[in-house]
């Protein structure tokens, strides 16, 4: 309630009139900085201060994006990349969730799993690329395995600590209600650990894209990373930039996706309730 009050208390200052009424000046300023930078970049390119070999002009990037979209090349590579992240993330989330459930819900599971996982976690998983190439060759497998491996740990760590962090007072209350162990896990522990698990999922998605970028540089013959590596051979900085833009948009998009999952799954949290009111 206090939120809507403050919102009403400051109705118009901070916004400008006519068609822009709904866009706060603060947002416009942010866009303005970006717009000025892009314009300066474009001017610099056109005047020859920024050589195309270093970086292509914004207009050239836009043009090649349109060309790549027109030929279907971009969509095709995008689908390949999305598929790798999707499969890898799926495998990683499944393994991470399974391990966290075993370690979080049983003493023996904790003793068996937690220490080794914590040890492996300290290793940067991208350093395994050479080993993965030896094990899995240079096909799809090492790329997907890298994404999966990267996604396991954020999921595991967050879900595990979420399970262990469930308010013991609630567990006690549930026990006085006569819940069985299965009921306790289903109605108290898992819902209580869900917020932490979703934080883990957001990290996992970020790591998945990072792993993909590295993985797609292993002798790939398709995917956004391949498209960029290929462009490098021909000094096509415009196509490389298109790849970077696409990666950025994909990261942003999937993060938004997880956020909307969070909003839907955690409706009971006051911040979410407040945000709706």
């Amino acid at each position: 309630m206090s939120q809507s009050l403050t919102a009403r208390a400051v109705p118009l200052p901070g916004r400008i009139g006519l068609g822009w009424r709904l866009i706060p000046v603060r947002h416009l300023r942010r866009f303005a900085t970006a717009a000025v930078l892009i314009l300066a970049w474009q001017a610099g390119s056109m005047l020859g201060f920024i050589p195309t070999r270093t970086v292509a002009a914004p207009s050239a990037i836009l043009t090649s994006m349109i060309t790549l979209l027109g030929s279907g090349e971009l969509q095709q590579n995008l689908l390949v990349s999305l598929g790798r992240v999707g499969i890898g993330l799926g495998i990683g989330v499944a393994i991470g969730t399974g391990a966290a459930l075993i370690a979080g819900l049983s003493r023996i599971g904790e003793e068996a799993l937690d220490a080794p996982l914590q040890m492996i976690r300290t290793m940067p998983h991208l350093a395994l690329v050479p080993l993965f190439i030896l094990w899995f060759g240079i096909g799809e497998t090492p790329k997907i395995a890298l994404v999966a491996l990267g996604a396991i740990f954020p999921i595991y760590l967050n879900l595990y600590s979420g399970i262990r962090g469930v308010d013991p007072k609630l567990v006690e209350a549930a026990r006085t209600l006569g819940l069985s162990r299965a009921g306790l896990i289903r109605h108290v522990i898992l819902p209580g650990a869900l917020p932490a698990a979703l934080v883990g999922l957001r990290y996992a998605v970020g790591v998945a894209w990072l792993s993909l970028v590295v993985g797609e540089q292993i002798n790939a013959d398709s995917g956004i990373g391949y498209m960029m590596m290929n462009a490098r051979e021909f000094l096509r900085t415009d196509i490389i930039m298109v790849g970077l833009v696409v990666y950025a948009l994909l990261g942003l998009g999937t993060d938004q996706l997880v956020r909307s999952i969070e909003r839907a799954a955690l409706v009971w949290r006051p911040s979410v309730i407040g945000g709706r009111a």
Partner: protein
Amino acid sequence: MSGVRIAGLTRRFGENTVLDRLNLDIAPGEFVALLGRSGSGKSTLLRTLAGLDPVELGEVDVPSRRAVVFQDPRLMPWKRVWRNVALGLDEPDPKARALAALSEVELAHRVDAWPLTLSGGEAQRAGLARALVRSPELLLLDEPFAALDALTRLRMQELVSHLWATHKPAVLLVTHDVDEAVLLADRALVLEHGRIAVETRIDLPCPRRSGTAEFAAIRTMLLEALGVHEPAAAHDLRDAA
């Protein structure tokens, strides 16, 4: 209907004896208030009766249908109010039962609310409904009103008194509030060093009012058992007010 029988209950935490050969019977439908200073073992006794703490030494007989209301409401924040009330119910229509219990505690308008949007009093009433819906033979109240504001507390005491009169479970109310004990209970106990130091019947007619002389006498007696000696002048001032 069976009541509570406790014989020789002893509970130690390391060197510290919290309950020392404690004997206590609570008759079916009896309302017992348990007073005591912090660390006197009140909560341990309640937790033992709730089945949350093990019986290591001594004998404890309790009814199988028990329910607890804690000081903090302890509702699952991810379940709507009625689902919290129905949680763990093994019935064909748990929702109908939950709704009935919620209207008994005057919370029918909040059945679909999320617990974190409830006020302190509402949350505590939901906790009461969650206990009530199990038709307990023994209702354990662990300082259920301590965190509420004074006005809400008075309304809640009235509500508990009414619910008890309707359903007649045996009640063990752990409280710091002597007035609350005298207002609600058939019998008040003062726990000290793990044993019952003082025990008194409260045979005042219901509904009780805190202004009467009998009320004040029992109140003073219990306060003295708790080590609080009221100066006479202050006492008179209270009565005048």
